[in-house]
């Protein structure tokens, strides 16, 4: 019997001693001879986990003379992990934040270094379009370096071959949209004798955030981007006429079975599949149209796709977006001295130099891309996805102005789409409430939004009429919507 107790005790002892150390003995101890600057970075992982110490990471480290330690945190648990890091005082020296109330509250509490006054010493950082900084500012101060994205991404992407066959034009008015979608659905654009196409399919998040198709069409028809400001007075987009007319368009499309009846439950994967397999003809998208064409030609080899500017009766008009996918901030917890702040800013500044911009967007020459004289070519899509994309998602690069790096070998359509992205910049309608403060929004913004999103869907599906819609608006106002408008007015 004693053997058991001895065994037991020894197991307990072994566990006790082992508990302190990592079982695989993986540790990163490097000699600190030339002492590159040690920089742990809290990184949001959007796609796949890149291999540790891969060539991209090494290339950045070598150029910036740093020793980077990326702590990849999956997006799905990013907020929770960050909350723990803050509570435990274990923040890395540089961390990605989103421009959301949770983070803004932390910033206001003085947890992060204010960077605004320091930026002038860093030529690349100070050369950035001021709008990028404005869109991440908190109480007018700058606390981070934006992870830059295009301001105006919305484009109309459509099946040119179908349009030509049916003699259609790119829609401008709401009536045009109705006619185009109707024809693409009922007039057999693919000429196979079957009624098996849609004009357009919606997915369940069709009316959410910046890529809301209701906002995009409504703006093109002269509507505001999320909020209308008149004489210092805030009105939400869904109380304006262009927006309501847009909703009526979709109500009509739904009623006549011209859009998918299951849009309330379908997710993007499914709708993308419908477009990619040549079963739908027009969409408003923020992505590059070339992607659609590439996938489409696998099933419909002779398909022709084109891209057009989002245009309404009053000309080109589209909603402006934040211009960032979050920003990189420096916590005071882990970075104690101004000297260290400067070192980190120096690192970020270097990232904007052409060699680094190339690495961030394309990866390493010879492994991810090859130089072909006037242009570059992606060598291996898989490696690009696994080793370059995570850094492209995280580190700042100039999305719309890549003049500093060699152009990629890209088909004509891709370049056309890219060009439209640049043209769009001049025609965007800003969201006036983007950086404004509202306690009500912070307290129950999502609930208020849900009331309206639900009502929009119910209206389109014919479950409520105009009266019902107005009742929902009243509900929204009373639940805090009015208060929110007032708070925006005051903070303007």
């Amino acid at each position, binding site marked *: *019997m004693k053997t*058991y*107790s001895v065994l*037991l005790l020894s197991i307990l002892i072994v*566990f006790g001693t*082992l*508990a*302190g150390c*990592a*079982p695989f003995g*993986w540790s990163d101890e490097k000699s600190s001879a030339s002492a590159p600057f040690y920089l742990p970075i809290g990184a949001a*992982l*959007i*796609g*796949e*986990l*890149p*291999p540790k110490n891969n060539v991209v990471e090494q290339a950045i480290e070598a150029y910036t003379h740093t020793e980077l330690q*990326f*702590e*990849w*945190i*999956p*997006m*799905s*648990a990013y907020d*929770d*992990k960050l*909350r*723990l890091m803050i*509570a*435990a005082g274990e923040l890395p020296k540089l961390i990605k934040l989103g421009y959301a109330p949770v983070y803004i509250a932390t910033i206001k509490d003085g947890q992060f270094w204010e960077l605004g006054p320091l930026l002038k010493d860093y030529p690349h950082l100070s050369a950035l379009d001021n709008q990028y900084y404005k869109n991440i500012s908190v109480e007018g101060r700058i606390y981070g370096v934006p*992870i830059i*994205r295009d301001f105006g*991404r919305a484009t109309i992407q459509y099946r040119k071959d179908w349009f030509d066959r049916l003699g259609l034009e790119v829609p401008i008015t709401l009536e045009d949209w109705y006619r185009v979608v109707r024809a693409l659905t009922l007039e057999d654009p693919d000429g196979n004798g079957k009624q098996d196409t849609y004009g357009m399919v919606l997915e369940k*998040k069709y009316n959410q*955030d*910046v*890529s809301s198709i209701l906002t995009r069409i409504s703006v093109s028809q002269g509507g505001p981007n999320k909020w209308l400001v008149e004489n210092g007075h805030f009105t939400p987009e869904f109380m304006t006429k262009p927006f309501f007319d847009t909703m009526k368009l979709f109500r009509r499309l739904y009623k006549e079975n011209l859009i998918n009846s299951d849009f309330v439950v379908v*997710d*993007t*994967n499914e709708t*993308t*599949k419908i477009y*990619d*397999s040549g079963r739908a003809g027009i969409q408003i998208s*923020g*992505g*590059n149209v070339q*992607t659609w064409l590439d*996938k489409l030609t*696998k*099933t419909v080899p002779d398909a022709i796709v084109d891209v057009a500017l989002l245009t309404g009766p009053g000309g080109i008009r589209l909603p402006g*977006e934040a211009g960032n*996918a979050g920003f990189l901030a420096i916590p005071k917890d882990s970075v104690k001295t101004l000297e260290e702040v400067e070192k980190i800013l120096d690192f970020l500044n270097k990232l904007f130099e052409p060699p680094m911009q190339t690495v961030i967007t394309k990866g390493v020459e010879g492994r991810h891309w090859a130089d072909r004289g006037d242009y570059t070519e992606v060598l291996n899509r*898989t*490696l690009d*996805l*696994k080793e370059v994309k995570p850094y492209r*998602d995280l580190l700042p690069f100039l999305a719309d102005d890549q003049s500093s790096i060699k152009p990629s070998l890209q088909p004509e359509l891709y370049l056309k789409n890219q060009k439209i992205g640049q043209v769009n910049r001049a025609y965007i309608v800003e969201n006036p409430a983007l950086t404004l403060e509202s306690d009500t929004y912070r307290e129950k913004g999502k609930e208020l939004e849900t009331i309206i999103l639900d009502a929009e869907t119910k209206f389109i599906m014919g479950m409520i009429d105009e009266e019902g819609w107005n009742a929902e608006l009243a509900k929204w106002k009373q639940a805090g919507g009015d208060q929110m408008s007032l708070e925006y007015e005051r903070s303007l």
Partner: protein
Amino acid sequence: MPQDKSTGNRIFDCINYTLLMLIALICVLPFVYVLAVSFTSPAEVAKGGLILWPKEWSLASYRYIFSTDTLFRSMLVSIYITVLGTFINLLFTSLMAYPLARTHLRGRQGILLAVLFTMLFGGGMIPTYFVVKAMHLTNSLWSLMIPNAISAFNLIVLKNFFQQIPDGLEDSARIDGCNDVGVLFRIVLPLSLPAMATFGLFYAVGHWNQFFNAILYINDSRLYPIQVLLRQIVILSQSSIGDTSIDNTEIQPLTIRMAVIVFATVPILLVYPFLQKHFAKGVMLGSVKG
């Protein structure tokens, strides 16, 4: 036994077998779909429709999985925490469950009540994190094994199983000079193989499915178990996170997502058939009892 051959019995068996077969089929078909898609070429899948058998076989998806060592490495991490973690779980749980199954033990009810209480109330993420940190477990794989060494649910149910073992057996062992520890390891555990297999399975699956704790407690991404990576690939590609920086170019095709599901699920699926023989061993308990 003439009764067994009656028509009523035969009809019963017939219906029973058919129903079970049907249920099994309904349960396994989706997995067949996942498996089939993972072996199909992306072009074939793009055409749409239900695929239950690949028309054009393709190993491209699996080649993608092995194109870097990240998935493979995280698989090793998962196997490691599952094997070692389950061992720790079974040891600690049975050590605690056995005394609690002895109805004469003083203070037993109080301890059971206290255990039950932890199933309902918890301190939450942040205080638990502080404890794990104070024990110096963070950023090590122990943080995925020690803080959940005993599941209150499994403990209570295992205690119940132990209780059903007739006292007579244990008493005879004690007369032979065993102390309680000996009784547990020599008599009770061997007699409880079906229960141990069951809770071993529960714990193993629990470890295999861990992802949230891994994200919270571990900073070094090389120590992430497979579920963290699986969710990254499968769930985030549903683009449900509303990050506008995601371009649909960069969403993984269905074939790869399915292949990752297969890769991350098959090892744990194999555990059950392996344990199955122990479920049958329960017969022994009956024979000893008689």
